[in-house]
């Protein structure tokens, strides 16, 4: 085990035993969650749209609520500025090193837009968006990783609630503080599990 996602870091931060059970021993039951599935569907539709696929037929597979949400979402300004769109559903893998500890961060950006020199990572949330994005672990991991990928500090992350189109955002601040925060969580994992 050497690679962490935002979710796994969150769990490791919260409870080491649960983390080991889930991510190392795989002692966990596939969860049963209908609303998560709906969220995934909407994510995918937005991504297809951004990639330029014709989604007319696919839209028929959504239920009424989902259709409504998708319609509303696609009216947001950002979707009108297609020229700024770079990538969607982009996976990343970042190698980190601190105090002789080597580990990796992985994840997937829902969408990336570039306006002038500024990169913005978009993250669609099915329901609630983080109230304090600056302090949010996802912001920290994503901003840190994006800064490595695009080699710039001119980055922001924007959370958009698909349910009510609310938006919050935060800008890149301190690389060292980010790494420190992530490192402090990774450090919690007993060394024998780090390969």
């Amino acid at each position, binding site marked *: 085990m050497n690679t962490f996602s935002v979710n796994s870091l969150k769990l490791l931060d919260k409870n080491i035993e649960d983390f080991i059970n889930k991510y190392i021993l*795989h*002692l966990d039951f596939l969860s049963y969650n209908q609303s998560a599935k709906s969220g995934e569907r909407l994510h995918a539709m937005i991504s297809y749209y951004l990639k330029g696929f014709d989604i007319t*037929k696919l839209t028929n597979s959504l239920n009424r609520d989902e259709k409504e949400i998708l319609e509303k979402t696609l009216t947001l300004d950002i979707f009108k500025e297609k020229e700024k769109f770079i990538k969607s559903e982009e996976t990343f893998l970042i190698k980190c090193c601190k105090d002789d500890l080597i580990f990796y961060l992985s994840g997937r950006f829902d969408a990336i837009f570039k306006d002038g020199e500024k990169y913005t990572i978009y993250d669609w949330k099915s329901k609630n968006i983080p109230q304090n994005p600056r302090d949010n672990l996802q912001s920290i991991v994503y901003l840190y990783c994006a800064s490595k990928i695009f080699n710039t500090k001119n980055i922001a992350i924007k959370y958009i609630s698909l349910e009510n189109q609310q938006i919050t955002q935060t800008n890149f601040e301190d690389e060292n503080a980010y790494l420190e925060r992530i490192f402090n969580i990774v450090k919690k994992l007993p060394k024998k599990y780090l390969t």
Partner: protein
Amino acid sequence: MILHSTINSNKTDILVEKFLQLVQNGANTDEILVLVQNGRKKKNFVEKIKKNSPVGNIGNLNVFSFFGLARNFIEKNWAHVENSIRYPNPCVFGHLCGLEASQYIFKNCIKEIEFKGYNSKVNLLHQLLRRYSLIVQNALSDNEIKIRENILHESYCSEVREAIKLYKLKTLEHRAFDYLRQVSIFEYLYKQVKNPYKYVILDDGDEITPAVFEYLKHIKKDVKEFFVAQDPCGSSRLGYLSATHIDFEKFLNEKAIDLRENSIKIQNAKNIFENVKNKTPVSAKNIDIKGFVRRDEMIFKTIEQIENLIKNGVKPNEIAVVTPLCDRYLRFCFNKIKQDVFFLSGSEKLNQNPHVGAIIEILKLANTDDCYLSAFILKGILLEILKINGDEAIEISQNYAYKNQEYKTFVKEYLKNIKNPDIEDFLNFLEEIKNAPLSEQLYKICTKYTQIDIKNQNAILKLNKLAKQIADFEDIFGSDFQKTTLIEQLENTIISENPLSEDEIPKNSIVIASAQKLIDSEICVKHLFLLDCSNSDWIKQDIGMLYNSWVFQKNWNKNEFNSNDNIELTLDRTARILYKLYLCQSEKMYVYSSIYDSLGMENFGAIDKFFTIAQTDKVKKSMQINPRDDQKPVLEYKSGKMAVSAVAGSGKTTIMLALIFKLLEGEIIKNLKSENIFVLTFMDSAARNFKERIKQNYPDMVEMPQISTIHGLALRILKENNNYTFLGLDNDFEIIDENKRREIIASATVNAGLDYSKTDLYERAISDFKNDGENLKNIKSPSFKRIFTTYNSEMKENNFLDYDDLLIFALKLLKTNSDVLNYYQNLARVIIEDEAQDSSPVQQELLNLIGGKWGNIIRCGDVNQAITATFSNSDVKGFKKFIKENPNVEMNKSQRCAIKIIDYANKIIDRASKLAPEAFLNIKMQPVEGKNANNNDAITLKLFEKSQDEKEFIFEKITKIKKQYPQKTIGILLRSNWQIKTFCDFLEGKNIKVQKDNYILNDNPVFKTVLAVFNFINDTKSKKNLEKCLNIMLEMPQYKDEGEILNYAQNKDFLSQEGSKYSLWWDLKYFLLKSTLTPMELVLEIGDFYYKNTLEFANVSMVYSIVDKIYQTHKSFEQTLLRLNEISNRVNKSAKFFSEEKTQNTDTIKVMTLHKSKGDEFDFVFIPELSADNLGLKIEDIKLKESSDFIQSIKQKPKTSETLKQEILEENYRLFYVGITRAKIRLYLTCAKTFKMYNKEKTQNPCEIFTNEVAK
């Protein structure tokens, strides 16, 4: 860049370096495609990139397995796929599911298309899937498929085409694509979508499939550079797994760099590759070759060897074991090693884990109200899930069994009346969840009842797999499937069928794998053990009725396919596999094989043939024999045909063995190999005896001559090189065991409106009819026609062959297929037939056919001992003719019998010449000078008034003999099986130990013990059952002082604590609580507990296999037990138990039929109950059975009653002759004038020998 490399040449490291260089030089990771053979290698490749990358952004890695490439492509471009599908009802995601969901669809397609005359329904799906897999992986176009259909003259091609077409449409409709279907979608998709890759790195270029290669061809024009690692001798996945050998030098128009080091190891590996292809054995210093008699010996020796290695500092992960037979028996044995063992092969069903099994049952309970449950499973739920205490769980489940037996009771109804808070809660819980989707139900059950801890890891991993499958189904079908049907399908899913489930290999374990898995995972160790090397599963060939792995290859370019193609191609693949395996070890490779498999059936030989011990190590002959003058000509044999007619006790077996040794040592025919010697025996025991004695003489001999019964040979002919396909047989055909055959005939008989008791008659009639070859149309008896037709269709339906089919089919194959015939004719340079007088016409025809090329046929026997003609298909006339037409060695001296007995036997021949002139050849037995006993009292003829007197006389004599000559052996020979039981009961009543023939299952102590424990587990309440079980258990020495437990069991509740003073009580209770295991695992537990010596443990493995076989069809503990009880007292040929070397036990008396006694000898022989009815020795005494007219009526040339009577008379003489010539010192011939039947005194006529003066 092309690298010619092996798994030892760090090729992956070089490719990773190339990857990093590309990135360093400015390539975007999005532009680099890395292809490896499987998921495990993908992980390995990614980890290496991660490790060697600088800190910071590594990028988006496109490292895929061959299948993963397709999956990823579809995921990325799903919207495009969906827009191309003509069906409405779109899906946001394609269902990239496991095989289970698509099999479900395929199954429904098959129902819509009629496959007329296809007999193996179970297998149809499997065959279609294999065919589909070949079509997809080889990227075959419709036209290419048609060409192949023509080459193979396929009769089902249009049905198959239709089924696959329907399947493809339905998967589109459901958007359900398993890994194969994904590949076919991919083939369409990549032509539509812009290629993103500029660089391609291909590890495992030798294992690439045509489908993937077609893709590379397609994108070649856009690719700046290819990096390919390929092992020119690799491609171990040729055939069904569809690897193809690509000439990358030609494809890329550049020279390969050879990275293969020039070491002895590589040289040896290449030698293996070449030699196997040329069918010449290899020897290498670091290959240890050993052959064992039994499989368990081989396994235990391996374990011992591994333990020694570890003692000497070898680490567990430096050892691996490869076998194609990773069954539970092997697992059980290896789990006894104190080291961690990881099994990388072997199929396992979900419900094999008791916890998972119980959860699946709960799912069923939640979804059905009117459900009965087996008490065994209920106990599992109570113990495993509800954690109810053992005693209470047993009590509740057994009470349910009783209740359910009396009046069918639904289990939920029953449980409602039990006052237990846990059960009440459980029932409420079931109510709560019953309307939820299955996936939610499973989630809730697991959350409530499965503890998340490491002890449960195995169960949890499996439950997750189950959950994933259910989620797949729900995604695809919504609620459009029956929950219970789905559960049933899923519980039988074999986990390893899915290529996606690749568990991580623990670091410190000994790995046990199949050859392919070891190679695929590139596991390199110091010590590599190859086991079961003589088992044909090593070279299993991938040809089925509806698929042909060779012709369905993309590069197949011949106009026909014959058996030699199959042999050559299989050999080629085997060469590649063995080459790669050899490279997987760095110090030593152990090639171990056994003559018999775990059912005691012989292995036909497989890869053991390719390895040989260096000549100098061979052991020279050790057995010296001084033949008598009459024996000498046998050993002077040079070539051609020879008859050996040997009288009883003339040392025939010894001299034949000496002849085999001489042949083996190359003293008679030059360059003769073991495999060129074919020995045919009449009984399995004789074949086994020959093999064991050869093994004793040459302990290091790995490849044995072909020694078997004619049925064994026929089976080899059908199975070897997949010859059965030429007869249109499916590869899952099974030899029906006698019990099952009887079951089918019995039910057909009863269904035809006849009495059950006629079963015997129809068993015989069916066999006779088949061998006779008469046309069914010509048979007059309507009931026979009906019964035969039912029998035939049942056999076809289940893909069974009976013993008659074996011979008939093998003969048919040899007659109709010259390739197969040539193969055996070339091989069989010398044929030796034992007991030639009992040889059937089919056997003789088969023997003449395969001996046709070299003509070296030696037939040994004694026409005067032909005793099976009247009830089997044997034909003594054939051997008589052979004697007349060929040089005949007469071995007429015998040192067995006392001189007086010899005289008597010769007089019987004289007497017969008047009454039954055809009975004997005039070969008279002669004593060997100074060797035979010369006592005057050798023969006693005694007639009694009453049968009881006769028995008492025998008892008295036995007591006397045992007192006077405790070392002497005694045999009682009787005419029929039923007499044996009465006699044994009588003697046992007098405290005389008797030994019946070890033929019925219950005579085997291991079987008997397992059955007793099973019966106990099934019902601890019935006093009768308890008494029976306890009596059996008490026979074991460790319980000999606990006889009182019987009393206790009769008067008290057996499970009450009062029983705790008996160790038997504790042991049985232990098994009772263990009984949530599957019956097979229980067998191993019981076996392990009671049987320590290896021979007994070999029999444990056999009982295990018997139970396994039954459980496969009956699927519940109770049904399996029922069947086990049914067969326990019947003759069973399908398992051949091992017994101690036949040193005669003087402690017990052998009681057997005259027929069985052939081949045996005793110091004292009793032949009682010699009435005229039992053994008529004059024509007036012969009575034909009522059924004989009927039997004759189904034959082409029926015999008249007179002829039949005469034949029986002749055989009775020979039977009597066989009986008397068993006696070495004294012979007692007795009869009584009256006997008791149903309490009535009846009179009977003694047989001729008591009345005729000459005989007297």
